[in-house]
């Protein structure tokens, strides 16, 4: 695993999410009250970018068909989505967000 710096924490306000590309992987960063979380940005239902959707509390809502995912775990929690999103370990050091991805 490699720990890759993806963004400064100040660039991602609490309650927002943003897409970053790491090692050819599209990753969605979500900043919640209890930390920053990272899941795959591609909806497991119809392969659209979840960063174009909305964040309701800790729930990521897909813009295309309304599937929903838990931002902390990547679990699919509402149809038509049923396959979980891949989750990536995240750490914040010195005000910088790092995501761990396969090398």
């Amino acid at each position: 695993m490699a720990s890759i710096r993806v963004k400064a924490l100040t660039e991602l306000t609490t309650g927002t999410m943003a897409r970053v590309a790491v090692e050819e992987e599209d990753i969605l960063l979500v900043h919640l009250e209890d930390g920053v979380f990272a899941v795959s940005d591609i909806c497991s239902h119809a392969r659209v970018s979840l960063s174009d959707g909305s964040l309701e509390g800790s729930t990521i809502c897909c813009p295309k068909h309304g599937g929903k995912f838990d931002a902390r775990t990547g679990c699919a929690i509402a149809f038509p989505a049923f396959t979980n999103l891949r989750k990536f370990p995240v750490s914040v050091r010195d005000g910088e967000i790092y995501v761990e991805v396969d090398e």
Partner: protein
Amino acid sequence: MTTQPVGPELEEYQYGFIDKDVSVVRFAKGINRKVVEEISTMKSEPGWMTDFRLRSLEIFEQKAMPNWGGDLGDLNFDDITYYVKPSERQGKTWDEVPEEIKNTFDRLGIPEAERKFLAGVSAQYESEVVYHSMQKELSDLGVLFTDTDSALRDHPEIFKQYFGTVIPPEDNKFAALNSAVWSGGSFIYVPKGVRCEVPLQAYFRINSENMGQFERTLIIADEDSFIHYVEGCTAPIYSTNSLHSAVVEIMVKDRARARYTTIQNWAPNIYNLVTKRAVAHADATMEWIDGNFGSKLTMKYPAVYMVGPRAKGTILSIAVAGAGQHQDAGAKVVHAAPDCTSTIISKSISKHGGKVTYRGLAHFSPEAERSKSNIKCDTLILDDLSTSDTIPYNEIQNESVTLEHEATVSRVSEEQLFYLMSRGLAEEEATRMIIMGFIEPFTKELPMEYAVEMNRLIKFEMEGSIG
């Protein structure tokens, strides 16, 4: 009742009679925020439902028309009446239903069917359910069978827990439209361990010209329960188009079984754009028995999402397209847990220039270890003017699964005809017999009374199909 002359482009249709307008409320044509708010206000809905409707309207307005499937070019959303209330109140006996409407349902055979072999009946005319009844034995067991508006009012907790969870308004443009203006439909809750051995039925009738019917059905079969629900639909023939856009959500809990039988026999001026989806949990079984006759264009793909281990899904459908008609129908089976099994049997018949399309999805997610699906699509094309397409989508994300797909397209064979005619049958009788054999896997799954009706319908549909 009067019968409107049928244009040359429309084939004969036995339920095309028109009643005089007896409505007590009729909205102006077109859809906007005010229409949606007025529907919600008139039904005295809670704020969350008004908000849900308005959010759905925004989604409907934002979503583009589908650029696949059938031709929706003639569908004008501004030329549709979105709400028509046919009577002041719902009848618990047929005597409480306005006479004109009662006569219509008599003519459609609903009260007779109710007396003979149904445990409950719901009859929707235009936007509202005008008659509803259920046998006391079932209500004593805790079964809830009511129209969807009453369910929102009388069973708000269970309603809110499930409504819109299987098919959210974002799912597609027509699910969003239904979510914005829904009215009527059926709500069924079967408690744990309760088996409804006798079917419940709903019948949907559109009477008005340029009418939109947007019923919403929600069925919850709790653990170890069984329910068989039957729906039928008809409408008069007009020279202009009407729209039927329903949403049906079904939740089949662990070890439960639900069967949903549809015989849609719409007039040839109806756009029938319906979203039907069921979720089957562990060891649950969901069966869609789906008959599509008539309509100008049907786009309907009943789905089973198998989310628990060993869930089963069956979709058995028949589609018949005649002159000027396109049946773009099919099925979706989603295997999202280990050891799920599914079967799709699709029978299509096209004649007199009609077009049938089978469009199906078989999805196996990474969790679907050892799941299996068997898909069989057969089409019978009765003349040179008619067409058929088969468009299967197979998505396989697990290497241990088994998927079998067979498709046949055939004509009524000369050999079979010769054999039957050599036994003394006329050509038309022989053809009909071959067609009956072709659709037999479908009719044998219907309750006997419906199978008889189906055979009669097929016979009627096939009249003049020779040559």
